[in-house]
């Protein structure tokens, strides 16, 4: 019982905890905390191209470290968050954005949740309509037999 409680507590803690940052090297961080926070915000939306399912803030890959440094250089030089992102996107394309912009080629991707719900609704309606017709009422002989069988 106690073991189970401890396990559950550990699971809840694991779910609640925010992911650890790979920017563990203080030398990488900008001296200005506001700029550092903005750089982290930008970096968390950029995909590491080596591991592809991690942001550059979370990845330990060499290229992610280089891109982190470039984002910080741009932010420290006075770039807005958008222009720092655009700088990376200009080199690596929309694929580096973990949140892809809505364009013609990503329209299907963005519409897919709605399409899935619509497909589910359509399926539900169709299978409802196909429900078998209610059975014909019992004939008199069937009813008397049923009564005979269920008579206590």
């Amino acid at each position, binding site marked *: 019982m106690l073991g189970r409680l401890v396990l559950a507590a550990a699971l809840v803690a694991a779910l609640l905890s925010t992911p650890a940052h790979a920017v563990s090297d203080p030398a990488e961080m900008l001296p200005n905390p506001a700029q550092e926070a903005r750089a982290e915000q930008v970096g968390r939306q950029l995909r590491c*191209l080596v591991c*592809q399912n991690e942001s550059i803030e979370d990845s330990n890959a*060499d*290229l992610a470290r*280089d891109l982190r440094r470039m984002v910080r250089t741009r932010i420290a030089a006075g770039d807005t968050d958008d222009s720092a992102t655009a700088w990376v996107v200009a*080199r*690596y*394309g929309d*694929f*580096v954005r973990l949140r892809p912009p809505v364009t013609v080629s990503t329209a299907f991707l963005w519409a897919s949740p709605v399409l899935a719900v619509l497909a589910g609704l359509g399926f539900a309606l169709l299978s409802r309509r196909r429900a078998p017709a209610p059975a014909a009422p019992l004939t008199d002989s069937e009813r008397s037999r049923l009564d005979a069988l269920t008579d206590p």
Partner: protein
Amino acid sequence: MNRRVLLLAPFGAAVVAGVGFYSVLGRMKTGTFDPHDVPSQLIGRKVPDFELPAQAPGQGFGSADLVAQGRPVLLNFFASWCVPCVVEHPELMKLSASGLPLWGIAYKDTVPAASGFLATHGNPFARVARDAPGQVAIDFGVYGVPESYLLDKQGIVRWRTAGPLTPAVVAEGLRPALARLT
């Protein structure tokens, strides 16, 4: 009739999926398809401005030198620590022997290691430079080595491959791209 169609539908779907997987895996094996491929943003655009220092046995070069060639050049990012670079090296030697100018950029490498790599495996490059910090590579959109960029005689990037130049990639990607240039 309806029932038979319903019964056969899963088998049909399995056959279609099987054929699809087979062809995709086959293309992954020859290197003509990479599911992790990130399309280059440079295609149809001018080579980014850069100036890189010397890497023995070359003297280094910049974007102006590439454009000044006035003929197509294959620009290759490589590193001595990179295993697929060893895989593609015989193909680079063949391309160089066939008369296509190859220029190399040693990515995140030391001078002795990169020159040792070229001494061991042969030097296919007309000119070699080094990008130790990897900054110029970022301007190209490089996300791993090897990567190869085909530039036309105006210095516009016409074709790019991320990953080793296998015989299949050369035959199905590079050669047709070269043919389109002339």
